[in-house]
């Protein structure tokens, strides 16, 4: 029977893995994601979950172990945070290139220098181009759901890719919210058992990860890129099936909030969307037609859907929760792709970015109000004065 529980993002991820009936789990501690492994270890210990629970000697080993398990045909699960995500970097491309649909939960944490444990998306964002599927959740419920949806998409025979299932550290990973845990039969209908096309097996020996020649590199890259042209179709199908079986209302690619008549929009990733929606309610009361677009997937980037959603607004604020030092906009990562996405629109909106929610900072309601003010000013002056605003660190605060 479906039941409702108060779960943090980490507990929801662990429940997601349990309901997905993962077969191999590899852990290594780093906060804030550790709570996922604590939950899973408890489940394995008390017999709730029948899985192999291994301790990696580091994050590099974690991904390697799950890669091997996936190659042998198991549904494998691991996770990390912050510097742990970057320590495992070497194995990301082989996991995607070798087509192992393992899943890695990431609860974001800042990278070093030293020891700020706060939430910031830079850790996971730095791994976005390694050929994995990737997306952020905004609520514990969505963490649970994304865990299932990602396995379903990643294990599709046309896709066969590993997945980063990301959530904001602390804001999401450690704040409980209502989560509906479904009936096991629903999950089994949605997510059939994983069957690897070429598992490592003594009865039918295969080679995984052999060295390829230089002239085979380019075609292999093209083949991997080609897979991402198929993924949106699979995401659509999986999300529709999910909505039907579990009675949810997810849009496959974007969460939009009050965008029907919006003149202005926030572009937000992750759990800050919840504050953003509150801010929108306030701003709407003041008569400002403003809405929000939140991508549920970062890889593949939902280009067409974002362009469609923002085609009628006049100005967009990209709320950056990660850093791209020295990048084109000298700020975050999202605005690069957002601007590129909107470039071909017949009437493209003005776009600027706001550095907020870094190093564990909370993005406050008043910050969203400030962003809205800047957007209005931009439209009034018909000029993008700055492409990046560092909230709290500007020499002259515009008002």
């Amino acid at each position, binding site marked *: 029977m479906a039941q409702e529980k108060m779960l943090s993002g980490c507990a929801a991820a662990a429940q997601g893995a349990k309901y997905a009936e993962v077969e191999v789990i590899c852990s290594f501690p780093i906060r804030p994601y550790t709570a996922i492994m604590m939950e899973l270890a408890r489940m394995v210990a008390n017999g709730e979950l029948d899985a192999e629970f291994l301790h990696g000697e580091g994050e590099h080993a974690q991904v390697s172990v799950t890669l091997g398990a996936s190659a042998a045909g198991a549904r494998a699960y691991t996770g990390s945070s912050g510097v742990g995500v970057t320590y495992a970097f070497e194995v990301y491309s082989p996991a995607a290139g070798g087509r192992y649909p393992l899943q890695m939960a990431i609860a974001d944490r800042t990278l070093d220098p030293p020891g700020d444990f706060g939430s910031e998306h830079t850790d996971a964002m730095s791994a976005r181009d390694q050929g994995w599927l990737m997306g952020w959740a905004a609520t514990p419920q969505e963490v649970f759901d994304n865990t299932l949806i990602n396995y379903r998409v990643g294990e599709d025979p046309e896709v066969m890719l590993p997945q980063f299932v990301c959530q904001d550290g602390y804001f999401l990973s450690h704040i409980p919210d209502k989560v509906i845990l479904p009936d096991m039969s629903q999950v089994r209908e949605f997510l059939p058992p994983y069957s690897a096309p070429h598992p490592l097996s003594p009865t039918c020996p295969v080679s995984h990860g052999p060295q390829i020649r230089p002239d085979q590199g380019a075609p292999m890259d093209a083949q991997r890129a*080609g897979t991402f042209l198929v993924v949106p179709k699979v995401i659509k199908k999986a999300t529709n099936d999910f909505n039907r079986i579990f009675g949810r209302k997810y849009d496959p690619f974007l969460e939009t909030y009050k965008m029907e008549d919006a003149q202005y929009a926030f572009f937000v990733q992750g759990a800050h969307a919840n504050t953003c929606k509150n801010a929108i309610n306030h701003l709407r009361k003041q008569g400002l037609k403003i809405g929000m677009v939140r991508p549920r997937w970062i890889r593949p980037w939902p280009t067409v859907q974002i362009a469609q959603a923002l085609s009628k607004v006049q100005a967009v604020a990209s709320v950056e929760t990660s850093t791209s030092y020295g990048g084109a906009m000298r700020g975050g990562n999202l605005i690069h792709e957002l601007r590129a996405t909107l470039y071909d629109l017949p009437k493209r909106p003005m776009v600027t970015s706001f550095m907020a929610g870094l190093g564990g900072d909370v993005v406050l309601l008043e910050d969203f109000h400030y962003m809205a003010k800047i957007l209005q000013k931009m439209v009034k002056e018909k000029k993008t004065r700055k492409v990046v605003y560092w909230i709290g660190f500007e020499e002259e605060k515009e008002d």
Partner: protein
Amino acid sequence: METKKQKTKGKSQRKNVKTKARKQASKPAPKPRQVVMPEDIYGSISVPEDRAVPFGAITPAPVRQQELFITSNWRIVRPVIDHEKCTRCLTCYIACPDACWSFNEKEEKMEWNWKFCKGCQVCIHECPADALKAVPELDFEDGVVRLEKPF
């Protein structure tokens, strides 16, 4: 709101086809939802069959060696053996990181595998009988540096 209006309009139009036809002459039909960006902006990617790599580079396991991925095309020098000097001590067999030396029991001499030797010269360095020497690939007609296409 807009979509609702369009929907109700559509219903009344379906009800009375004649008025619809008359109206169409004077009034343009309601525009469908404008598609601002087509789904196929990425075009398509097609890798010719003769260049395609097996899915995930996963291949049937080789019984002796992986013929699908021959990896010696960056060799600059190759070890050449002097069978007179060779004492069959198998030091080269042990030293080679890619298992490119083997002992041919029938002919009782060492055999070199050109497909996987990268020319690292460890065997030459280790040979106690001084039976191996490094010869540039350019000195051979089939030298890998002469190949226009790698295998």
